[in-house]
């Protein structure tokens, strides 16, 4: 059965806590990577190589991340027995160096989901992408991400690394 968006929104931060076996939310990208490396529940690390230079991928991140991910998303779902109104702010950060490019995405629920543990100011870390060169025009991508849901977001970001079908993910889905 496909999990609801609400379930995923609640489960992802909880999974990070459970995986790290600590009562503390990752407060920075390093702690987030560490939690996923230790096998945080409902997360995974995808590693693959692409025929693009790291600098080129950095340019794509810089072009698309602000316009596509710096968003406030409002979702309303209603059934006969429930009503959920969630406002979520996403904050992307691109760190582009000469030999390394990183994309971080934080998610903060401004309404509708309670943050039980202390989060960083811009919200909990949702994903981190690390890109490093493995040749002149070839790069290694390490994608620290949720293992379920957020299909459009994951597809769009993977497309940015591959340089194919570039565009923004519909974050309402």
């Amino acid at each position: 059965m496909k999990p609801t968006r609400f379930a995923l929104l609640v489960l992802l931060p909880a999974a990070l806590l459970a995986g790290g076996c600590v009562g503390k939310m990752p407060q920075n990208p390093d702690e987030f990577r560490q939690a996923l490396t230790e096998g945080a529940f409902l997360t995974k690390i995808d590693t693959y190589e692409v025929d693009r230079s790291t600098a080129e991928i950095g340019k794509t991140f810089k072009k698309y991340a602000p316009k596509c991910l710096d968003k406030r998303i409002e979702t309303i779902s209603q059934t006969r027995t429930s009503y959920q109104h969630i406002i979520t702010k996403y904050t992307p950060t691109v760190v582009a160096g000469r030999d390394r490019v990183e994309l971080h995405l934080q998610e903060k629920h401004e309404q509708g989901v309670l943050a039980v543990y202390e989060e960083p100011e811009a919200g909990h870390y949702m994903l981190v992408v690390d890109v490093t060169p493995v040749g002149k025009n070839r790069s290694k991508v390490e994608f620290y991400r949720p293992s379920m849901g957020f299909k459009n977001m994951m597809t769009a970001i993977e497309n940015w690394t591959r340089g194919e079908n570039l565009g923004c993910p519909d974050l309402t889905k």
Partner: protein
Amino acid sequence: MKRLSLIVAALVLALLAGGCSGIFPYKNDLDKNLTVRTKTDSGSFFTSVKARVDIYSVDDACKVTYRGTVDLKRPEVAIGLPAGSPNYLDFVFSSSSFLANAKGSTGFDLFFVTRPGHEYVAEASYVDGIYDVILKERKNGSNKLRELDFGECRPK
């Protein structure tokens, strides 16, 4: 008499409802200098996607005034924007699912100045959950298109 009262009440309600929605058609009576090419495909038989562009004028302080909306139902739509003026375009993709009774809308905005003697092409697409709008400029009569940035003014 009673029937007439009902008709008048219904008309008043309809007018109020129309006014309350806040969306009205863009006048589009200026020389056409923007062509919007639209492609939408939800990727699912049970979901439909509609596209529209909300048009705003912008002042020096990046304050916007709504001028109307153009439905992007056709693959290509010509729009006339005031030449030499800053414009703010908000492209909106709305999807609705017949089975899940779910609706959502997303999109993004562009700020740019329409230069006299130039024409603009916006390629708006929403395909299977991935959308984009690319704005290009060319001199009248030229074939060379230049992609524009989406601007620094972000009033919304």
